[in-house]
């Protein structure tokens, strides 16, 4: 059974439909990438899974359970972690407090503490600054903190909104390595990404969105090999 499954989701803002009948499946320990050009509705789709935008129809199943009607905070508690693209930390809280907020709904004090130190070990960049307020961190460090915060809730699946945007290639590579490590822990990852090449290379499975609809799906490497996709959406001029 897929850990997270979206069935024919149609969503948007107000009366405007942004994405139409999108179905996506994420298995445990798998990276799924949703790629597509600007304005294709990737982020809106992600937010629709979290109950942050209006859903017109479709169902969202988490471990087989229908969570379509849940409010955002209950979806988080069910085991879906989310890393937004911008505004992804609590600026006025320290790094450690940010991590604690990720475990807000957990009751096991000892476990929270253990997870907190584990994540700080995992991201040495954060450990150095653990007592600083998050607003003093750089963009890349914030992205790491946001991922760490989401992991503190011990999610079964992690949703990431353009985790590589605005990052230098070096930091992007670091983030991708961390995502691979998270995947090894049996967590399913769903990432929405504009950097199509990097995302599909890292992903086990990919979906290509355009103008609110799913154009193509398949294994990451298979999508990458598709010539028409390369030309239309990657804008790559060099042969790789």
């Amino acid at each position: 059974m897929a850990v997270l499954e979206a069935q024919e989701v149609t969503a948007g803002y107000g009366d405007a439909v942004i994405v139409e009948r999108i179905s996506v499946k994420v298995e445990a320990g798998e990276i799924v990438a949703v790629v597509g050009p600007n304005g294709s509705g990737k982020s809106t789709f992600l937010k629709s899974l979290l109950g942050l935008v209006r859903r017109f129809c479709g169902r969202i199943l988490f471990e087989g359970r229908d969570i379509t009607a849940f409010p955002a905070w209950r979806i988080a508690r069910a085991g879906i972690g989310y890393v937004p693209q911008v505004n992804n930390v609590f600026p006025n809280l320290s790094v450690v407090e940010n991590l604690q907020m990720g475990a807000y709904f957990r009751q096991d004090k000892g476990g929270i503490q253990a997870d907190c130190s584990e994540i700080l070990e995992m991201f040495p960049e954060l450990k150095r600054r653990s007592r600083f307020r998050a607003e003093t961190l750089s963009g890349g460090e914030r992205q790491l903190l946001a991922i760490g915060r989401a992991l503190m809730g011990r999610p079964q699946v992690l949703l990431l909104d353009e985790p590589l945007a605005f990052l230098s290639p070096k930091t992007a590579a670091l983030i991708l390595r961390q995502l691979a490590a998270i995947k090894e822990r049996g967590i399913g990852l769903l990432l929405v990404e504009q950097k199509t090449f990097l995302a599909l290379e890292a992903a086990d499975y990919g979906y290509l969105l355009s103008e609110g609809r799913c154009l193509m799906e398949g294994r990451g490497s298979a999508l990458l090999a598709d010539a028409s996709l390369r030309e239309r959406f990657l804008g790559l001029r060099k042969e790789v």
Partner: protein
Amino acid sequence: MEILVADRLIKDFGGLRVLNEASLTVTEGTITGLVGPNGSGKTTFFNVLYGLLKPDGGSIHFRGEPITGLPPYRIYRKGMALGFQIPRLISRLTVLDNLLLAVRQEDGTGLGTALFARRHWQEKEKGLTYKAREILELVELAPLALKPAGELSGGQRKLLEIGRALMADPVMLLLDEPAAGVNPVLGRKIYATLERLQREKGLTFLVIEHRLEMLLDFAHYVYLMDAGRIVLAGKPAEVIAHPDFYTIYAGESYQWLS
């Protein structure tokens, strides 16, 4: 001829030295790139150059005049314009109004002239619409001239932001990732437009850019920034070929480009 000279700029944020004696020189009529890892201080550098932040040390000269510590509106009047990374448009005003707002020394913008030089500025505005139309056609937004800017899509907003910077007839533009958030095809088109303006009108551009292929194709000169200072400078191909470039910036993930 250098148009912009920044000399040993310093900026502190609560104990954090974000700019650490950063210096750069931009030659008139070129496209100059600024690259660097995240958190290296590029955006802060821009904000200090443009007067949105006051530097804690160092000096800035624009066309030979000192502009250190001047507020942005005065720097703008001297012929420098800034494009934000995330476009900041006036969403309830139309696309046209957004362009007209950017005109330098526009008539009728004072309390008195708005009332008493009415005929005069109405004439001027008519003339400005032709210029606005040219720019709108350049950025392919002409049919949307009377639409509120808030109704544009992300890519269109980015284009309007650049169009607005052009409307001021600037001598120099600072653009923070002009092609970020738009698809690669459109991104190249934006750069091709910048290049044409540089070639035909002699405009100077200083751009923050992550996409190395854009810099390779369009920039004349590149500065690499790390930890608040400029560490490398030169022609794009030279900088990218430099061994330090890989250790500081690219890391191992960049093989796919070459």
